[in-house]
């Protein structure tokens, strides 16, 4: 493992934070992206030329990928940054209409340690936004450092936490619909560094990250029956959550403190929701109805659970206490609602909606109000929230004999819908928390 060192360094030209007008208010749904320039970070040592270029590109891609920013290409720049410490000629960046300018430097010492420094400028007020920052770490962690830089830039301009230094666990798929092979995979949020966590000898589905990102719950058919497994990401070892032959368990989810797990268990054709305390294996049954109760998800404070049930006659969303008991229905629109996931901010529920033969990913308030459908297709399902609650990733399957599944992301405003590139087909994404 590597360690990232995070340090603020001395402000040379004074940052007047309060006066900065450079700001994107994400809540309003950004239509016109903010233009920015990121000249290639200066390589302070000869061996840093390539990593400086690569790292700069990751920062650019992170920012433009949000849909909130638009990069002004290097070919349009009228001047170069030749020294990280020299004062910036703001007029050179004003003429190309850059609202934000990000400059940086990269050095690699003889021990292979990578050091990156960067500054963010508000071009029109001619001020630095915040102060310069320095990250250092092992040279092979350059992607993570680039994501950290972009997270910091995002945070300074939007006032919100970023989400670039994060990962997605998902099901990687090959083969036709009737003989699809599935295995768990892990990647950076932007699709880099794909790593496979299981083989494809058995069907696997619906992995879910622990709140620290160190464990993954998923469902495997390795025993011949769907069975919830708990996987240690560090050593890539799995064990069954419940070792009881012939029972069916699925739809697992961690509690926000990581101490307990929700899951569905089948008994006599009926599926209910249970909660297990991981420390002692104690199990509590949370729902008791002859209907299907599944897809539970905790509120961020751990006090409530949103889940789906067909007790009304069709799949709908309900909220109950973390100890079970009475549940209140929150979905009342036309159609069916499933796979609810509580947002990290606690204020919204993302879900899959089926209506008139189409599938949608949507969000609603906790009382079911302000329902907003973000997507529509033959089959969209399984939303997962970005760590800052601003973006949703989900899986989309195409129809017909050659139908495949892939991952997409979309803003909670419904904008910036785009595919995530994966080496094979992909489904059932789960977004990690922001790494530390």
């Amino acid at each position, binding site marked *: 493992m590597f360690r990232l060192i995070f340090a603020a360094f001395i402000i040379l030209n004074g940052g007047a934070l309060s006066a900065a007008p450079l700001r994107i208010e994400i809540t309003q749904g950004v239509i016109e992206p903010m233009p920015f320039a990121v000249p290639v970070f200066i390589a302070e040592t000869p061996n840093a030329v390539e990593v400086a270029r690569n790292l700069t590109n990751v920062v650019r891609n992170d920012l433009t990928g949000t849909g909130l920013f638009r990069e002004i290409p290097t070919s349009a720049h009228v001047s170069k940054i030749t020294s990280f410490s020299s004062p910036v000629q703001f007029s050179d960046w004003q003429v190309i209409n850059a609202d934000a300018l990000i400059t940086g430097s990269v050095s690699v010492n003889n021990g292979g340690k990578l050091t990156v420094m960067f500054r963010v400028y508000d071009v029109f007020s001619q001020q630095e936004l915040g102060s310069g920052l320095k990250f250092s770490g092992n040279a092979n962690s350059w992607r993570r450092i680039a994501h950290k830089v972009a997270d910091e830039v995002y945070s300074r301009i939007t006032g919100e936490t970023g989400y670039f230094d994060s990962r997605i666990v998902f099901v990687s798929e090959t083969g036709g619909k009737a*003989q699809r092979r599935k295995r768990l995979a892990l990647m950076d949020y932007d699709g880099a560094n794909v790593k496979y966590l299981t083989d494809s*000898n058995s069907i696997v589905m619906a992995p879910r990250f622990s709140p620290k990102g160190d464990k993954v719950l998923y469902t495997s058919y390795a025993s011949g029956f769907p069975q919830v497994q708990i996987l240690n990401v560090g050593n890539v070892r799995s064990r069954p959550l419940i070792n009881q032959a012939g029972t069916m368990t699925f739809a697992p989810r961690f509690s926000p403190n990581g101490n307990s797990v929700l899951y569905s268990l089948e008994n006599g054709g009926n599926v209910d929701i249970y909660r297990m305390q991981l420390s002692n294996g104690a199990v509590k049954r949370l729902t008791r109805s002859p209907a299907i109760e599944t*897809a539970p998800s905790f509120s961020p404070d751990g006090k409530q659970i949103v889940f789906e049930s067909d007790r009304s006659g069709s799949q709908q969303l309900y909220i109950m206490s973390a100890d079970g008991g009475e549940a209140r229905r929150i979905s009342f629109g036309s159609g069916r609602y499933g796979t609810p996931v509580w947002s990290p901010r606690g204020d919204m529920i993302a879900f899959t909606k089926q209506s008139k033969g189409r599938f949608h990913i949507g969000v609603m308030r906790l009382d079911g109000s302000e329902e907003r459908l973000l997507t529509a297709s033959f089959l969209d399902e399984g939303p997962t929230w970005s760590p800052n609650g601003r973006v949703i990733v989900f899986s989309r399957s195409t129809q017909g004999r050659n139908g495949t599944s892939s991952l997409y992301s979309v803003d909670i405003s419904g904008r910036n819908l785009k595919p995530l590139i994966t080496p094979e087909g992909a489904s059932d994404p789960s977004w990690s928390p922001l790494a530390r």
Partner: protein
Amino acid sequence: MKKLKNAILFTALVMLTACSNSGNPFGGNSNDTFFGNDMGDISNPTSPAYFQQAIGDRVFFAIDQSNLSPEAMDLLSSQATWLMTNGDYEIIVEGHADEQGTRDYNVALGARRANSVKEYLNSLGIAASRIQTVSYGKERPIEICSNESCYSVNRRAVTVLNNLGS
């Protein structure tokens, strides 16, 4: 058409038996519940081949339903009669859903379907201890087009024999 389908399936199962050590033709999920038993000859009424093809190993369901149609009950009665006279077999009932639906819900729906079959067979005198159920949700369709002609075949519960003697 149906006979042809059965014949193809039968061939596939024979292939499975033949190459049980080297993966299986359904996609290599060697741990999934496709048993590699000898199917025997369809002309022999005590053979699994007879059970599967002459009687029929599967029943179908309406959209989002798990109740048994009259046709399904007829077929399951024949399965029960066969199981009564062929006591060496335990069964696993595999419940399946079509692709219209979310993943978790379809696992639950397939479990309901498998359980409907289990309960009906049990009501006809087959001991519950001989019957296990498993749901594959929408993970293992038989037909892969995206319309009702395929969906109606995929919404199924399949009775899979497991010979205790073998």
